[in-house]
């Protein structure tokens, strides 16, 4: 556990420190050599992209730009005339930037600046649901990726079960006190699907009541879990992710882990039948243990208007430190799709069929969960 906590903190500080450090050097550099126009670019460029990548309102950025406008018409033309020491420093910093951003960092910087330009001028598109694909691809997914790759070390199986085109309804179990599993599922589809599909999650109404959360959720392509929105998305041929257990699954006590709760009223099956899209069952192992919920402070929950208020071995005793999830090893398995286009759209009004299909999906997920649990070596590895 001690190990586990070191990882996120280390990353956190590194990325946070990474921003001011180059900027500080850029300033000293500008003082010593005002006549060398080619030196500041890589230096000033690094913090700028990071600022652009992280923040959405770039209203603060004209200041650094206007501070050194006279250096604009320089470019790399003056490169050969640089003193040797400056060149060495540039090389060193180039190497540093290389390590920080990976190879081809200058292209990444140019790319980031183009992104920043579109952002500050508001020149980007969102769909009717408020989904900001560019922001999701460039920023939100990049923020979640370290958590996905390094922290939970998610292993994805059966991603090819999500069709390459057309609508599909991914139905998954829900657990973990905080809806981390939905986000990880979104990253899994985003990063691993061969056709580069985007998962559009259906979220509880609480998400759209909370400030900041609702804004980010809409921009990441989530929408309210209601039949109208789901149907509209599926008709547009999107991959929609739904967790029919809802808060019952998310906020269940640790002792009931990996026991699927009731699957709502089967509304998701009715919607899939209406639109004729396949249902892809999805089982997520590992999310249950990130916040082992040993108690539920119902009074506090009622006061705050939340469906439950978790008490874990670390939360709320350690304060914000208790919010750090346990670094469990995750497996996300997408199962065989269950076709629904063999039924007429009117079948959605047949409660027996809807119940049967709901049970079939539920059983599939539960069995896959058991199978994955048997295969699992340990919770953390």
């Amino acid at each position, binding site marked *: 556990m001690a190990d586990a906590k070191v990882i996120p903190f280390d990353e956190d500080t590194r990325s946070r420190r990474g921003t001011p450090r180059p900027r500080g050097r850029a300033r000293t550099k500008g003082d010593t050599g005002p006549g060398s126009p080619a030196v*500041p*670019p*890589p230096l*000033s*460029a690094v913090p*700028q992209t990071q600022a652009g990548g992280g923040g*959405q*309102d770039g*209203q603060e*950025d*004209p200041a*650094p*730009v*206007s501070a050194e*406008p006279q*250096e*604009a*018409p*320089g*470019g*790399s033309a003056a*490169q050969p005339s640089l003193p040797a020491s400056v060149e060495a420093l*540039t*090389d060193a910093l*180039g*190497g540093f930037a*290389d390590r920080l951003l990976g*190879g081809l*960092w*200058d*292209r990444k*910087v*140019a790319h980031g*600046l*183009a992104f*920043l*330009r579109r*952002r*500050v*001028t*508001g*020149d980007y*598109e*969102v769909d*009717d*649901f*408020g989904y*900001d694909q560019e922001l999701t691809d460039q920023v939100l997914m990049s923020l979640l990726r370290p958590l996905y790759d390094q922290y939970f070390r998610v292993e994805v199986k059966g991603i090819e079960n999500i069709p390459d085109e057309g609508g599909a309804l991914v139905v998954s179990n829900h657990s973990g006190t905080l809806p981390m599993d939905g986000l990880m599922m979104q990253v899994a589809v985003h990063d691993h699907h061969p056709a580069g599909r985007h998962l559009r999650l259906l979220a509880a109404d609480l998400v*759209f*009541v909370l*400030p*900041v959360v609702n*804004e980010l959720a*809409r921009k990441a392509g989530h*929408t*309210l879990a*209601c039949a*109208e*929105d789901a149907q*509209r998305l599926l008709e547009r041929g999107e991959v929609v992710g739904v967790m029919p257990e809802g808060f019952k699954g998310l906020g269940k006590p640790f002792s009931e882990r990996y026991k699927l709760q009731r699957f709502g009223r089967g509304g998701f099956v009715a919607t899939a039948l209406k639109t004729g899209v396949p249902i892809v069952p999805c089982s997520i192992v590992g999310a249950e243990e990130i916040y082992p919920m040993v108690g539920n402070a119902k009074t506090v929950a009622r006061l705050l208007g939340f469906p439950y208020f978790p008490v874990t071995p670390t939360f709320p005793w350690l304060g914000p430190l208790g919010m750090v999830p346990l670094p469990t090893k995750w497996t996300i398995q997408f199962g065989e799709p269950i076709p629904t286009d063999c039924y007429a759209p009117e079948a959605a009004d047949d409660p027996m069929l809807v119940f049967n299909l709901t049970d079939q999906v539920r059983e599939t997920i539960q069995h896959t969960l058991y199978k994955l649990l048997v295969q699992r070596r340990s919770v953390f590895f």
Partner: protein
Amino acid sequence: MGKVVLVTGVARQLSGRLVRRVMREPDVDRVIGVDAVPPEHHLGGAEFVRADIRHPMIARVLAEHGVDTVLHMDVSGTLPGKGGRAAVKETNVIGTMQLLGACQKAPTVRRLVVKSTTSVYGSAPRDPAVFTETMPPKSLPRGGFAKDAVEVEGYVRGFARRRPDVAVAVLRFANILGPRTDTPLSEYFALPVLPTVFGYDPRLQFVHEDDVIDVLLLALRDPARGTLNSGTFNVAGDGVLLLSQTARRLGKPTVPVLLPAVTWVAQTLRTAGITDFSPEQIRLLTHGRVVDTTQMRETLGFTPKFTTAGAFCDFARSRGPGLLPPERLARGVDRLAALVPTGGDQT
């Protein structure tokens, strides 16, 4: 289109433009404009009758002129000239009741077109993301103009039941924007710094005033082949803009205000006489609202010339740049990009 057209609320800019357009229609004999205050703009040869639609006198106007087409434009959040909320509500609701009562008694009336608003859907976090015409809102608007519009639509539905021979069209417009509009929302966008609700980025939809005129004319005419212009239709430009996007495109900085403090800020602004924030407008600027326009395209047969972004762009052009013009920001980023060496010679 009918031979005699009656238009209510002609003292408004938009209605004035519409009246002038209707006058130019070939088969229209007369246009009668009605309002409680005389319009400041000319009506292009239309007759102006100074009448308050809240009074039964409107029935006499209808009968005297043998009106066959009625366009009810006097459903609005504000009154031209002065008038408190009570007067606005009375004009909206009582005015509509009187007008519909008069229409019911007038056997010549063949067509009724009512300008309504998408605010009848309200704005709530628990609503579906996109509203269709048949969707009832989860929480009905509790007050203000939105509630008036809900009540007006209720009376119009009652009228349509009682007079099945009259073709009734209710057009629910998204926020109308254009170079000449003076709605509460355009007043908001005219502020030098835009107050927003912290943590919310609402989705907004706009319809250009030119499109409003066009679609109203379409609803007044006889339906074209394969289309139907009676019923309820959402009218909005394609696409969606987030409030943050609109602010950046206008070049205006935003000031996020915490939701509990919003009403207080709104009250201060109202007292200072800068802009009138109604609670429903605050809700719109918190949760946003998007409507589906499939019916408008397929049944009504109308395609707006301006998208939401296009309508907003036209509006922004007419208002001049804000404190942070997007062009300047873009130039700033370009300058920054020029500083970055392009080749791979650094590594």
